[in-house]
């Protein structure tokens, strides 16, 4: 699109933001200049700490009190950077609006959706409550919420995550905003919901002549929606331009790394098929896990079933040396299965035979001994380590507790394990908060390997990590799997990772396995409608299946 004759909607010139803490200033954004054109969907991509969100918030004057801002943010001839707060309030929600990553925490839980959508209308246009309600219903229609007349009287907790994000978008555009700032709007959502929200944003851009700034760490999401991309790193813009140009021909080294790190940009794992004949290590038969449902008065009176089945009659087998992926959206029961296998959750039915033992029948010391053969790596690298223990102690602890080694021998083994996960043993004395997320996840892996397990379960281990780190962790895990001959269960919502990492895949929905088989079969020719929908929702860089590139990269 040619924008050379059109004046920019917002013009940002030499914007710098410093965060002042304990007397010293940490630069969050450094001397950034760019334009937002009318009708633009500008994507800002970068890793955590790259300054993308800070830039976005600076436009609306929503920076924390510790932030010091310099430079210009020109909007309709005025400089938003120096504007008085009272004037800024008139622009927020009327001309420029913002939506956030987590709709649950940005909607008021004790206010009806209608009141929250009507609020900007009443504040900015001074219209009556009844008119605001009518306008609210129209906006809910615009964001394609079914039954808007009913939903307008709902409270946030009565809506699903996707509907909440739609409601937040509705509140943001209700006054006819020209510019919508979207800060990671789909990060907390499942991939199929994400696809629908992105579709909605695209539609709103057309129907409402809305300009959008989309901030995301996910280049796939950005490439799918945006016509222009701005790549940020360490507070600076490293590259910006048309989406197609940047994706096809990235100039900056960092952009190239970002593209190469996208999951699924790798050759599918070429693995020997010898595992078919290998003995069965884990056999799951008719596994059921139920949780009590909070009972209301009606349920209590009618004595209806007060449990819900997180896992419902699931059966599968894992052969020794094989890697099985369990994929599905949040609430599909995939993590519950993972936790049942190592005995963290007690199933209400079925059997779990691992290494010849029925895990469901094990208690006390027998269960503790079993855990030597099955280990788990957790999603959040920081939360799964005791913040008060040095990471070296955390790795040594399992060996000492299981009586496998003396504390002295364990300390020596810690060094070996840390080298195995490609960390310098010098880091052993650090606490988790002194390490990066990627380093902490390596510690988590080292700790899981300390007991030399036969089965390693990885529960969404890369979803809290930046994409370049994610690629490194997966490479490491791939090497360890081959050198240690590990059997793996890889729990994930990310199909692109599964495609390159696993041999077989089980697709879960609502506590059941809907499809299971070889990765190439299930993801290549999905038979079930749900698998097809899941595959179609994955954001793609080139609008088609990813073209595999050379596995080696920086």
């Amino acid at each position: 699109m040619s924008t050379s004759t059109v004046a920019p909607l917002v013009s940002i010139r030499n914007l710098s933001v410093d965060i002042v803490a304990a007397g010293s200033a940490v630069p969050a954004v450094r001397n950034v200049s760019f334009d937002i054109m009318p009708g633009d969907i500008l994507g800002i991509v970068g890793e955590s700490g790259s300054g993308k969100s800070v830039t976005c918030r600076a436009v609306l004057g929503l920076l924390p009190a510790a932030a010091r801002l310099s430079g210009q943010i020109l909007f309709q001839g005025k400089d938003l950077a120096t504007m008085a707060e009272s004037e800024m309030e008139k622009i927020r929600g009327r001309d420029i609006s913002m939506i956030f990553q987590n709709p649950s925490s940005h909607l008021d839980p004790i206010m009806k959706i209608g009141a929250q959508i009507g609020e900007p209308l009443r504040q900015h246009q001074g219209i009556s409550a009844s008119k605001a309600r009518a306008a609210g219903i129209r906006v809910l229609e615009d964001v394609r919420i079914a039954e808007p007349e009913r939903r307008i009287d709902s409270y946030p907790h009565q809506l699903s995550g996707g509907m909440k994000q739609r409601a937040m978008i509705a509140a943001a555009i209700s006054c006819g905003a020209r510019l919508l700032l979207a800060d990671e709007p789909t990060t907390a959502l499942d991939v199929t919901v994400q696809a629908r929200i992105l579709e909605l944003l695209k539609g709103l851009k057309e129907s409402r002549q809305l300009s959008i700034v989309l901030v995301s760490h996910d280049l796939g999401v950005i490439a799918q929606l945006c016509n222009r991309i701005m790549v940020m790193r360490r507070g600076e813009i490293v590259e910006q331009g048309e989406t197609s140009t940047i994706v096809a021909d990235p100039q900056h080294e960092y952009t190239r790394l970002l593209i190469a790190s996208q999951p699924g940009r790798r050759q599918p794992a070429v693995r020997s098929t010898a595992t078919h004949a290998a003995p069965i290590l884990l056999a799951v038969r008719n596994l059921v896990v139920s949780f009590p449902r909070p009972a209301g008065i009606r349920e209590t009176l009618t004595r209806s079933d007060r449990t819900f089945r997180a896992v419902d009659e699931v059966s599968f087998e894992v052969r020794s040396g094989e890697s099985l992926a369990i994929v599905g959206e949040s609430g599909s029961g995939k993590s519950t299965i993972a936790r049942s296998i190592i005995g963290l959750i007690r199933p209400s039915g079925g059997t779990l035979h691992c290494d010849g033992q029925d895990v469901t029948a094990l208690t006390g010391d027998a269960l503790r001994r079993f855990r030597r053969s099955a280990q788990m790596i957790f999603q959040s690298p920081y939360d799964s380590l005791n913040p008060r223990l040095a990471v070296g102690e955390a790795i040594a602890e399992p060996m000492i507790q299981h009586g496998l080694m003396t504390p002295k021998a364990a300390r020596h083994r810690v060094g070996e394990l840390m080298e195995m996960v490609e960390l310098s043993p010098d880091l052993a004395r650090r606490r988790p908060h002194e390490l990066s997320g990627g380093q902490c996840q390596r510690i988590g892996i080292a700790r899981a390997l300390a007991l030399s397990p036969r089965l390693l379960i990885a529960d969404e281990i890369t979803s809290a990590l930046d994409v370049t780190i994610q690629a490194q962790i997966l490479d490491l895990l791939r090497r360890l799997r081959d050198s240690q001959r590990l059997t793996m269960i890889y729990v994930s919502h990310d199909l692109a990772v599964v495609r390159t990492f696993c041999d077989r895949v089980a697709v879960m929905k609502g506590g059941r396995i809907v499809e299971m088989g070889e990765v190439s079969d299930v993801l290549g020719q999905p038979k079930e409608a749900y698998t097809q929908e899941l595959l179609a929702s994955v954001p793609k860089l080139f609008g088609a299946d990813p073209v595999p590139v050379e596995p080696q990269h920086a």
Partner: protein
Amino acid sequence: MSHLGLSTAVPRARSRGSIEISIGGSLLSAWLFLAIFGPSILGVDPNQIDLVAILQPPHADHWLGTDQLGRDALARILMGARIDILMSVLGVLPPLIIGVVVGLVSGYFGGWIDSILMRLVDITVAFPFLVLVIAIVGMLGPGLDNFFVALALVGWVSYARLIRARGLVLREAEFIQAARGLGYPPLYILFRHVMPKALSPIAVYAMSDAVMVMLAGASLGFVGLGVQPPTPEWGVMIADGQPFVTMGWWICLFPGMAAASLGLGFLLLSDGLAGRLGVRK
């Protein structure tokens, strides 16, 4: 999971609570020093009755005056510091230890153990704190030992409740789940991983509890169930001096100030710790 990068860029102010900690800490250590070395430095017998010199205002021989029996007030306050500090430590530690163990077990293991222990807590809190303490001391007989026993029997409930709430939360924490998954024994997890993380609000509460114990001790002394005469204790000194307060302002003022400053020390330390450890009171 913020991608804003601001949370990491704003380190918690280093000095938070440090003024309170240093003032409170100095007050407490000053009293500790005075309690240990004060009486021998002064070299005056706190129980030496001198009926010739009763109710004397502060002057060169008796810096803080004398009481109705002619005993030196300064000597009695210094000796009383030993009793009062001992009281606040022995009055806080046993209930703290009982409460922490009960609360941890209750919160972490849950189930029927939790139900039984928490009903016990409910029964105990159904009675007003001081009334129950007085009732128990009344049954066991007056004296400092029985006062400590009574406090241990009554005081643990607040600690148990506080730490049970933390235990409930920590039980679900991912690093505790990870510890379970690694096959550590339950009691090891409880004391090695859960307890250290649960203790910070307890440390803060213990400081303010020390003040409560001092007040309770003074109240008991006042009704004659606490420290027995002639042992000097600040609460008893105030109570004994009360009939003579119109004749000498100094009799109640100085022990009162001593009690207040020691209490202030504990409270400031508690406030400072709360700020430092990020505990909301």
